[in-house]
């Protein structure tokens, strides 16, 4: 309800304005009859037409001068012409002429002129099919008009200006947009000056117009800038042919014209800058092109092969995709690119100027295999700006047989562009470019800072180990009956090789189980299957989570120490643990704690690559302990350690076991198994062949140690004989004796030799011979 008064006020205002406007129009139109004024005027009379809208069509049969006040409209009825001039020496100035018909057959025009010496100036044409149409109206002037065509497809539009058999006319300073063409036909000695024609089909279309001058015209964004045909002695000066990009897209097309003199023109951004088709047509004619700029066109100069007698000098040919094109097969000849020792500037010229005279010391040659291919097969233009273009050119340079003929040669190319002043309008400001570039640089810097400082994902310093709310065994009591890790019938094949077969395991909190077996027995593969690293058959459940379906939850319960310690060597130890702490979602304080726990606190700032094998092993254990997981998996847990480090490491693991962690590990060392394991799974050829207590492992498997004895060389054979007599498996091995014994009877051979009076100078214990003990081959199943 509140808005109602304002609505009324606005409504009243609009109504008043409408009524006033309507009244004004009616008063003017009613008080002055334009047609009557023209009809009753005498020859040479000047009629001032008051502002207002007058109905068309207006017929002018008297030689009068019609001068309109500003805002004077001649309104057509949408049929036929709006104004027809039948009398000579008429001037029509300052009108707005609207609404012709749409008939192309009847050539409906804003003004149709059928008599000579007519002046059409300072008029505005709106919604017209044709703008100004001179039919046999010689010596006429069309000046300062603004002509806008109908909103129709180009093919259904008329011509903005058309001259038909109207020689000696002047067309100057007109603006034509959205019409079809500006047509000048059969009209010799015409001057076309300072016109702007945009968004049409042919900016200018000439036929049979000898001695015509084009100066200062702007022909932009048309299908073709100017198509000049069948005319002689044409002068083109200071014209702009820009972005004419229709299917043919010529800046200027020359077809069978003679005697063109073109100077100081700009041909830019067209499909073809200048197109030559049989021009000059007469054998006695020469055409000159001087001080023009031909730039950024798809083809700068396009010639039909038979073109001759064109002279080019002091032109700038800049960055045309193809500087010179020869359309079709054949070779150009008798065109001249040097006059008085001066050629043209070619932006792709790669020569030099040793004497500094501004002329290149070697010729410019337009020669390109890819361009030749494009000229013959235009569809290959699709590959412009592709590396394949360079590849083709390279092939042409490398292999002479591929080298195409030279299209044109400029013997005196200019080293610098000719300084030609061409006004191109106001340039856009610099700041958007600079701002965009700065934004790019700042964004990149921001990203890099994130990389350096780690702000992408920084862990909370106060965060402790992630509470394992979903984990029933996060704080397991020792030796509970519920397994925390269960593997059922794990089977993994690599091609025909069965790496693991029907592997079963139950691992309980506080329990340590060893996987024992020779190389290739499947220990590591089984462990990786349990971690989900290797796809396999069977089931693996860790702390109640299926390792395949909920791998993240399952692996969160496991600390893994691999056999081959692979870390990021250029990281510092604390950085590395910090990274894994983030993944495991534990606080940074845990990094210091675990480093301290494994005795690496003083090496925290060392790079991983600088650490010894033992330190890396400890670092791996530290990483495994970060989240205080209930399960530890260690593959060859002491592989990289010396004896002292091995003892220390085993001590660490025993403490973890005693704290309630479940430990699964692989090892070749009987002593480690005896020290840490509660049970042993003996594997061979991918299968668990037996289970036993650690203490009985050697006995159960018939394991033997190999002793190597250093004895006086003179008594080597005697020693071997003595040992065999005692029942040992002994033989000579170079300058030593090798003897196999039970692991718990390694001293007995020494005692036997001593009793026989043979001194043993030194001895060495080799590893257990697990292969013989398990009796398997590396390639078959269990035997």
């Amino acid at each position: 309800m509140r808005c109602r008064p304002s609505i009324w006020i606005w409504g009243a205002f609009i109504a008043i304005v409408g009524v006033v406007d309507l009244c004004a129009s009616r008063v003017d139109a009613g008080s002055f009859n334009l047609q009557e004024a023209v009809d009753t005027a005498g020859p040479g009379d000047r009629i001032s037409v008051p502002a207002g809208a007058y109905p068309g069509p207006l017929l002018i049969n008297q030689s009068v001068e019609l001068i309109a006040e500003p805002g004077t409209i001649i309104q057509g009825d949408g049929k036929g012409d709006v104004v027809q001039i039948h009398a000579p020496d008429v001037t029509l100035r300052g009108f707005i002429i609207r609404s012709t018909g749409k008939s192309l057959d009847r050539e409906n025009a804003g003004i149709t002129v059928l008599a000579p010496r007519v002046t059409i100036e300072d008029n505005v044409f709106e919604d017209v099919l044709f703008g100004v149409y001179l039919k046999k109206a010689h010596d006429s002037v069309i000046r300062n008009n603004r002509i806008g065509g109908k909103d129709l497809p180009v093919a259904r539009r008329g011509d903005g200006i058309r001259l038909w058999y109207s020689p000696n006319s002047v067309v100057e300073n007109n603006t034509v947009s959205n019409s079809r063409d500006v047509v000048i036909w059969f009209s010799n000695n015409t001057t076309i000056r300072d016109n702007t024609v945009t968004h049409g089909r042919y900016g200018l279309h000439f036929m049979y117009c000898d001695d015509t001058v084009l100066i200062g015209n702007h022909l932009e964004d048309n299908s073709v800038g100017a198509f000049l045909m069948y005319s002689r002695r044409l002068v083109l000066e200071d014209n702009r042919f820009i972005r004419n990009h229709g299917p043919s897209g010529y800046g200027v097309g020359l077809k069978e014209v003679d005697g063109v003199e073109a100077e100081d023109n700009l041909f830019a951004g067209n499909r073809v800058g200048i197109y030559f088709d049989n021009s000059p047509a007469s054998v006695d004619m020469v055409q000159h092109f001087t001080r023009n700029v031909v730039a950024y066109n798809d083809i700068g100069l396009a010639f039909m092969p038979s073109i001759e007698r064109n002279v080019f000098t002091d032109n700038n040919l800049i960055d045309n995709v193809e500087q010179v094109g020869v359309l079709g097969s054949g070779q150009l000849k008798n065109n001249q690119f040097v006059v008085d020792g001066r050629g043209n500037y070619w932006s792709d010229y790669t020569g030099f100027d040793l004497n500094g005279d501004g002329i290149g010391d070697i010729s410019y040659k337009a020669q390109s295999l890819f361009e030749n291919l494009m000229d013959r097969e235009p569809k290959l233009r699709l590959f412009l700006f592709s590396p394949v273009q360079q590849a083709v050119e390279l092939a042409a340079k490398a292999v002479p047989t591929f080298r195409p003929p030279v299209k044109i040669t400029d013997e005196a190319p200019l080293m610098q562009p000719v300084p030609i002043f061409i006004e191109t309008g106001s340039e856009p400001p610099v700041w958007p470019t600079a701002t965009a570039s700065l934004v790019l640089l700042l964004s990149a810097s921001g990203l890099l800072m994130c990389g350096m400082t780690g702000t992408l994902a920084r862990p909370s310093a106060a965060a402790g180990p992630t509470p394992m709310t979903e984990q029933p065994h996060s704080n397991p009591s020792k030796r509970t009956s519920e397994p925390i890790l269960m593997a059922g019938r794990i089977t993994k094949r690599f091609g025909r090789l069965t790496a693991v077969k029907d592997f079963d395991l139950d691992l309980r909190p506080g329990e340590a189980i060893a996987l024992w077996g020779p190389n290739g027995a499947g220990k590591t593969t089984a462990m990786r299957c349990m971690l989900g690293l290797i796809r396999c058959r069977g089931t693996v459940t860790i702390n109640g989570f299926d390792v395949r379906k909920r791998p993240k939850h399952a692996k969160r319960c496991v600390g893994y120490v691999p056999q081959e310690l692979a870390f990021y060597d250029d990281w510092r130890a604390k950085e590395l643990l910090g990274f894994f702490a983030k993944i495991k979602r534990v606080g940074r304080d845990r990094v210091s704690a675990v480093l301290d726990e494994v005795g690496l606190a003083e090496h925290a700032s060392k790079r991983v690559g600088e650490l010894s094998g033992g330190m890396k092993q400890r670092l791996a254990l530290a990483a495994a302990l970060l989240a205080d997981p209930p399960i530890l998996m260690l593959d060859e847990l002491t592989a990289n350690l010396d004896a002292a480090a091995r003892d220390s490491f085993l001590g660490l693991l025993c403490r973890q076991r005693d704290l309630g962690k479940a430990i699964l590990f692989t090892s070749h060392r009987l002593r480690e198994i005896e020290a840490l394991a509660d049970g042993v799974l003996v594997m061979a050829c991918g299968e668990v062949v037996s289970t036993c207590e650690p203490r009985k492992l050697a006995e159960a498997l018939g394991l033997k140690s190999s002793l190597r004895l250093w004895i006086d060389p003179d008594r080597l054979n005697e020693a071997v004989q003595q040992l065999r007599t005692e029942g040992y498996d002994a033989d000579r091995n170079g300058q030593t004796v090798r003897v196999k014994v039970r692991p718990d009877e390694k001293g007995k051979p020494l005692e036997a030799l001593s009793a026989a009076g043979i001194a043993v100078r030194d001895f060495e214990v080799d590893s257990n011979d697990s292969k013989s003990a398990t009796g398997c081959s590396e390639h078959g199943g269990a035997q």
Partner: protein
Amino acid sequence: MSLRTILIIAHKELRDALRNRWFVFYTVAFSVLAMAMAYLSLAGSGMQGLAGFGRTTAGLVNLVILLVPLMGLSIAAPSLSGEQEQGTLAYLLAQPITRFEALFGKYLGLSTSLTAALAIGFGICGLGIAANGDTAGVGVYLTLVVMTFALGLAMLSVGILISTLTRKASPAIGMAIVVWLCLTLFSDLGLMGSALAFKLRIQDLFGLALINPLQVFKMSVLHSMNASLDVLGPAGIYATQAYGRWLSALFIGSILGWIILPLVLASLTFSRKSVS
């Protein structure tokens, strides 16, 4: 899938990239070449005031087509396979992360570092050109930047796919170079030959060109420069007339396909891959 974990892996990749020589090398190489290209494009044409980014862009298109795929492929191809070869991938996957997180984290990190390298190159080049007073076509220039980023992401996706198909860095890089050669040279040579030998129809030629992301990149930038593809001859005119305003969408769709499809394939491959 946790975004936080992806960001952690991405950050690691980004940090590794900054420590590696490739980042510095590619950034410097791209910046220097872009500047050189811009200088050469502007050197002979400043007087008309018609040059500027439009022409520079045309020169940069060639540079980008050659260099960016090489950058993307050579960075991404050894990313997973190299870590697998070193053993660090198995160790990483033994941690509480999913394979998708590892893959997308790596992709995100590599994307960030590659994009940063390209942004530095374009930024320096743009500032140099702006300081020279040449301004025309900043919109075109930004289109070039964005499409270059997109092309880089597409090549990273292909590189990641290669990485999931190989177990060592060397074969991965070898395969990446083969793919690079195919995309930059062999496919276009093949298409050129086919166009001549089999008289391919224009629409077929254009359709086949759309398969190559490098051609798509080139055409999209040229389209933004000229509002049409007329410069590319009959095939370009056909594309402009047949697809009109949908042409940009076609190009964007094609590039997006090259980003997404290889990444999806890489995810599937990686999820089934045994890592040891």
